[in-house]
């Protein structure tokens, strides 16, 4: 199909692939990027919060050009039981700054724009092309790819696997294992359209200010999972995700859970009267540090979700994807500038640089969290939300019961549900995993 030889082939035009292709093209390398979607973004799903700092490192002027929705001035955390929520809101006018820190975006539109920057930098971007196989030479080194376009292979010095969480190529080639049911969450998501003024009134916003809500509790029915509600300009992104292993075990349906979330008395008024225009689903890597596979080898590196570089506790993924893509590209460019081959030894520079970045440091910090949340999901996602909600209702309802008795009742309900040792153990486990 393509006779010429490339310095690098990037598989995938998501956050990680675009960051990698852009960085290498800017350094004068000859880059081919392959994307299976009709256009970059047509296969991608996100909440979506964009973290400005990591984007700025790639396209400093993105604020003037990129399709952004709202800059965030407020973050809400909700702990929910079936009829109520206990919330923490953080809102600050400091976020109304000249260079805002976080934005909501619409991924399909953002990726299209991001890709235009990659083309401008000189990379060749081919869409509607599914890479079907990695090509090896007789010494088992990766030397290129095969696509579904026409037979024939495309060769390059190095292949950057930015194929996302469900990456087939790397797993088929035995470079890493297939994601396991307890390492990935399935999220389902809808786009709810409403007039701009309605969204601003319901979320207490003016201009381009935005709010996001993260929710946990009985909405996931005892499974490890979270819901989210993000305000865009003229629509609301709303979704919920739980571990695939939990779906497998409980026989709950993802759409059933989504609709249940939408009907919750705290959620329903926010989306009342909206027009739904899309229903999407996607996996999220949740295994954390312990699930990170081998990141490089003879002629290849893996970046972003494909490498499980995703911080589920903080709901950060795209910024880890962008950063790992950029760092991998910088490492490759360095090896190339030294005129050295793309061997595993030389490409280990990527891992060394990544280890020094926030990406690995953050994931390391929470290395025990995924296991904890999964093993004790009933406590964290069912029992505690119910207890806390009951405790607060008891606290705020005025009914002539003396306060001392109320406090005693609350304490008793906690001890009854989890026992003293249970409470103590949960607290210790949580603190240890968080530290």
């Amino acid at each position, binding site marked *: 199909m393509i006779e010429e030889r490339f310095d690098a082939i990037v598989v995938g035009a998501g956050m990680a692939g675009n960051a990698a292709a852009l960085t290498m093209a800017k350094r004068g390398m000859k880059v081919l990027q392959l994307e299976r979607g009709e256009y970059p973004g047509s296969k991608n799903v996100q909440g979506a919060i964009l973290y400005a700092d990591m984007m700025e490192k790639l396209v400093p002027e993105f604020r003037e050009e990129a399709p952004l929705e709202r800059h965030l001035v407020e973050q809400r955390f909700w702990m929910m039981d079936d009829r109520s929520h206990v919330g923490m809101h953080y809102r600050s006018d400091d976020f109304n700054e000249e260079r805002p820190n976080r934005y909501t975006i619409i*991924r399909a539109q953002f*990726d299209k724009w991001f890709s235009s920057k990659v083309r401008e930098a000189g990379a060749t971007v081919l869409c509607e092309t599914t890479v079907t196989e990695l090509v090896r030479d007789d010494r088992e080194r990766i030397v290129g790819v095969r696509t579904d376009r026409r037979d024939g292979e495309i060769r390059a010095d190095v292949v950057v696997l930015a194929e996302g969480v469900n990456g087939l190529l790397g797993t088929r080639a035995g470079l890493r294992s297939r994601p396991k*049911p307890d390492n990935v969450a399935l999220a389902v998501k809808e786009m709810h359209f409403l007039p701009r003024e309605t969204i601003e009134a319901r979320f207490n916003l003016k201009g381009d200010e935005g709010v996001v809500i993260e929710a946990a509790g009985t909405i996931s029915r005892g499974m490890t999972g979270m819901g989210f509600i993000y305000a865009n300009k003229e629509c609301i992104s709303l979704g919920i995700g739980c571990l695939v292993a939990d*779906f497998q075990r409980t026989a709950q349906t993802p*759409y059933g859970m989504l609709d249940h979330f939408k009907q919750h008395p705290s959620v329903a008024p926010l989306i009342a009267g909206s027009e739904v225009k*899309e229903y*999407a*689903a996607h996996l999220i890597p949740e295994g954390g540090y312990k699930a990170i596979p081998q990141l490089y080898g003879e002629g290849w590196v893996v970046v972003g979700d494909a490498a499980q570089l995703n911080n589920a506790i903080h709901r950060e993924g795209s910024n880890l994807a962008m950063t790992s893509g950029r760092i991998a590209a910088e490492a490759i460019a360095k090896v190339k500038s030294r005129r050295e081959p793309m061997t595993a030894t030389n490409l280990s520079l990527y891992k060394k640089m990544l280890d020094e970045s926030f990406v690995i440091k953050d994931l390391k910090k929470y290395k025990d969290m995924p296991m904890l949340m999964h093993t004790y999901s009933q406590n964290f996602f069912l029992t505690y939300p119910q207890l806390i909600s009951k405790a607060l209702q008891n606290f705020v309802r005025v009914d002539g019961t003396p306060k001392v008795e109320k406090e005693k009742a609350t304490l008793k309900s906690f001890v009854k549900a989890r026992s003293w040792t249970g409470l103590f153990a949960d607290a210790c486990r949580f603190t240890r995993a968080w530290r």
Partner: protein
Amino acid sequence: MNVEPTVRVEDKLYYNRYLVDVGRPHVTVRAHTTPSPQLLALLNACPARCYELNDNGQVEVTVDGCIECGTCRVIAEPTGDIKWSYPRGGYGVLFKFG
């Protein structure tokens, strides 16, 4: 609690844009007489409800509404119950928002 009768996935899928690759399904189920637990799990876990039981009690897949999430791959590919690929370039679901 199983599939809620009020939720119709078909209505949700109707919002989406697809380019169906007629006659070339990207997911197939291995022939079987009695479905494995993994295959049965797909009846509920697939967010597009692509998997259904036929009259003989076997699990069948219809990929037209597939949103390419990969959940069924994670659950049932290791046991050999299904074969999973991406659709050909350009085909399949086309998100406008994502």
